């Protein structure tokens, strides 16, 4: 790929771009470097994906567990995320925080995140520590050994995380309320952070049961990207991960189906720390793996990627709003397309709401121009390129394709699908999903505007 780009550069110079009237670039000219990955499945059901790349002497190790906030037990909202924190405490062979000794202390890093459908643990370390980390990931998959003191103190940390993300900042609760109101029956309606009461109710026995249910090799995908020898990696994987037995009990899976929306629902919430009112819409869109999401991602870029985007131009630049964003928040079972705007001072939420609706209607009524479509694709393709600058970014992309799209090849093929989206595709998905009855509306207002007597 590097060679190809240099050829292009030489061509550009040879053509002598003396003037700045340049040809509009087309995204189809751009070839994203392919990730050449190895894919194997161990006898215990663990999937292992790897990309050998010696550019920097580091390696990124990720373990994707197919369990997320939607799997929080009843009455234990926030548990999958709390559990993720507990995975850094003691195991059979490691003391609490030993993961930090094996990563941070040698110049690497570790972290983890919990999403609706997955929990992901990752480390980036100097490549000579790869064997050490494969051992360590195997050890915490094999079993935890947590005591009361560590459990309680880490639960306090998570409660502080709740306060820091949702209570302290202005608009912290906006996304929280939007999540709650956007689903009727699916457990996606419970915000992943949970709430203080249900966090307080969690016990060490819950931790053991959760580990037994979900932390098993046939529910895990290991992704390794960076400076290693494939044969050596295979041998270490056989030694430290293949030995973990697959349990006989079935894997619990969420089977609740979110019903189609049949009428617009409008909610108003109030907060103590809302300097300017906000308005948000959500529309139900298909599961993450659905092919319509390519066109929906392009639509989101047309609406809000950059200062030339439609929402920026019509709401922010015209000073109706301080911010206006659109995004396809993709989830495994069913997704949301969110539009969110914080108002400019002195504006009315209803006016901004109508302006958002106008922008949706325009995309339904008229096909986007070739230039605007190309711009959106160029932005999405360049973003993907930015994601591939690091081993960590490559591992993220590969893990997401394998676990959430159930096809690791899509790490390479989705970008081609996205580049093939037409103006007709965009118009079609806008008409199909952005109906009045498929809309949830949330007005988020300062506490001072709550009508007297209302609670």
């Amino acid at each position: 790929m590097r060679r190809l780009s240099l050829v292009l550069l030489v061509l550009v110079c040879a053509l002598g771009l003396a003037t700045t009237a340049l040809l509009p670039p087309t995204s189809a000219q751009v070839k994203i470097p392919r990730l050449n990955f190895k894919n194997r499945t161990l006898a215990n059901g663990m999937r292992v994906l790897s990309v050998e790349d010696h550019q920097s002497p580091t390696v990124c190790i990720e373990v994707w567990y197919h369990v997320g906030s939607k799997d929080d037990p009843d009455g234990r909202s926030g548990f999958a995320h709390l559990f993720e924190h507990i995975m850094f405490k003691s195991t059979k062979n490691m003391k609490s925080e030993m993961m930090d000794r094996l990563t941070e202390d040698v110049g690497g890093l570790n972290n983890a995140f919990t999403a609706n459908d997955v929990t992901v643990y990752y480390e980036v370390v100097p490549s000579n520590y790869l064997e050490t980390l494969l051992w360590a990931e195997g050890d915490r998959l094999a079993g935890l050994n947590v005591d009361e003191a560590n459990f309680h103190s880490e639960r306090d940390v998570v409660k502080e995380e709740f306060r820091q993300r949702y209570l302290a900042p202005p608009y912290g609760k906006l996304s929280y309320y939007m999540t709650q109101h956007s689903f009727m029956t699916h457990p996606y309606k419970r915000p992943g952070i949970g709430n203080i009461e249900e966090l307080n109710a969690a016990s060490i026995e819950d931790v053991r049961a959760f580990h037994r249910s979900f932390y098993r090799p046939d529910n895990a995908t290991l992704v390794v990207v960076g400076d290693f020898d494939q044969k050596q990696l295979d041998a270490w994987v056989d030694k430290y991960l293949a030995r973990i037995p697959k349990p006989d009990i079935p894997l619990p899976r969420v089977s609740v189906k979110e019903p189609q929306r049949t009428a617009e629902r409008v909610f108003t919430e109030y907060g103590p720390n809302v300097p300017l009112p906000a308005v948000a819409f959500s529309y139900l869109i298909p599961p993450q793996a659905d092919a319509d999401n390519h066109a929906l991602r392009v639509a989101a870029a047309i609406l809000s990627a950059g200062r030339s985007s439609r929402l920026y131009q019509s709401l922010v630049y015209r000073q109706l709003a301080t911010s206006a964003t659109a995004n396809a928040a993709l989830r495994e079972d069913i997704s949301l397309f969110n539009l969110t705007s914080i108002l400019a001072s002195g504006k009315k939420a209803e006016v901004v709401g109508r302006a958002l609706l106008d922008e949706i209607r325009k995309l339904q009524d008229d096909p986007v121009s070739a230039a605007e479509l190309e711009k959106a694709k160029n932005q999405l393709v360049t973003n993907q390129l930015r994601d591939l600058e690091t081993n960590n970014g490559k591992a993220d992309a590969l893990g997401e394709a394998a676990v959430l799209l159930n096809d690791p090849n899509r790490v390479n093929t989705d970008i081609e699908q996205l580049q093939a989206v037409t103006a007709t595709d965009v118009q079609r998905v806008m008409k199909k999903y952005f109906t009045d009855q498929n809309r949830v509306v949330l007005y988020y207002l300062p506490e001072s505007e709550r009508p007297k007597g209302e609670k």
Partner: protein
Amino acid sequence: MNVLRRTLRHALLSTTLVGLSLAALPATSLAQQETPPPPSSPRQVRFPKPVEKTLKNGLRVIAVEREGVPLVTTQLLVRAGGETDPQQLSGLAQMTATLLTKGTTTRSATEIAQAIEALGGTLNTGARWDASTASVNIMSSRLAQAMEILADVVRRPAFKDEEIERLRQQSLDSLRVALRDPGTIAALVASRVVFGDSAYGHPLGGTPQTLPSIKRDDIQRLHQSYYRPDNAVLVIGGTIKPAEAFNLAERFFGDWQKPAETLPAASTTASAMQTGASQRVIVIDKPDAGQAAVVLARTGIKRVDQDYFRGLVANSILSGYSGRLNQEIRIKRGLSYGAGSSLDVRRDVGPFVASAQTKNESGAEVASLLMGELARLADGQLSDVEMTPRKAVLIGSFARNLETSGGLVNQVAALALYGLSLDEINSYIKSVEAIGASDVRQFAGGRLSSKGAHLIIVGDANKFLEALRKQFPNVEVIREADLDLNSATLRRSTNLP
């Protein structure tokens, strides 16, 4: 994905060369326990080597090639930032830099956004304390088009009245939001307390009182005085050959005329505040705060200080996930989602800040933990067993920052800004490794003494004030509604200008 992370640490990419052995790990005596397999021998890291030339108009151009995906970052850096803002016009440098993309003599704001975004690129401008920057990030094959736009916005901004008014209103709205966040308020108050009315004391983005005073003439004058080739550095880094980078620099910036007037001398008022100020303990009472923001702040050092690497290592002992602050506040006591510190080095003496957010009830306890750890760095024990991993953290993070074209360009541009050798990229690791425990203790005692540190808490004072007064009888309490960031008194009075 909507995700919750274990820590707020940034997940950039890694590289390191520290061949640390695992001997330092706690030994275990339990039967049948496994110990982790030790590391193999470390591999060498190669960092890219910057090359440079100076154009006839005085513009310093630096090119730095690295292998990888076909992306390039180009940054034009001007050696003037918020430190040049007159007191009553705080926010001027920031507003000027932001306006660069809001119209040129030949393009409107919308046309600029369309031009760069059609290429898939980004164009960002802004001011720091000692510099203003304009940067593009773009696919290598489209760099020429992007650099033409970059040159246009830096050299020929229109500063139209209509755009100035629009930005003013948008900035005021942004401030309305920011000034409701306990962490943001605490950081702005800390700057005023440490630097008073000197150059680094005001909010970089201005205040609700100063933004309305900024006139087009002020903006135009700042641009004319400081945005000139002999006061700028152009850094081009990523997947690009240096010869090509130099050609593009010449093509788009070679005819940028240097004005006849001499360059204004840099102001040096910041360091005036560094000694003698007595310790202040300030509570901003914000009854609706969902959490208390606790900040310890004092003067730190300049970037060119000979103690820079001592300072970096000292800060690393305190900060980072396993640094002392997070150990004591989060890991041992569960009092916060994260505690840390930063040694913010600038052209002149910048601040040292330690901070954490906690439930209002624990505000006083976290304040005393922050203060205690700062004191212990100077007085307490410090072994190599603790030092070695904290140095590894610095080295690993430095190397990871160089992996993206944006990170690489930022590092090189900072060296150029402070007149440091560009070779420092390749001597950084040795400089960090050379620091010993006595260096850190000396630095902490002499340059980071807790006696010179001020304390600021923004939160629901009812819940922590009594406990705080027991430790600090001299607490000043200011209601959120009375807070005035325009002067060091911090208190609104009726006869302000």
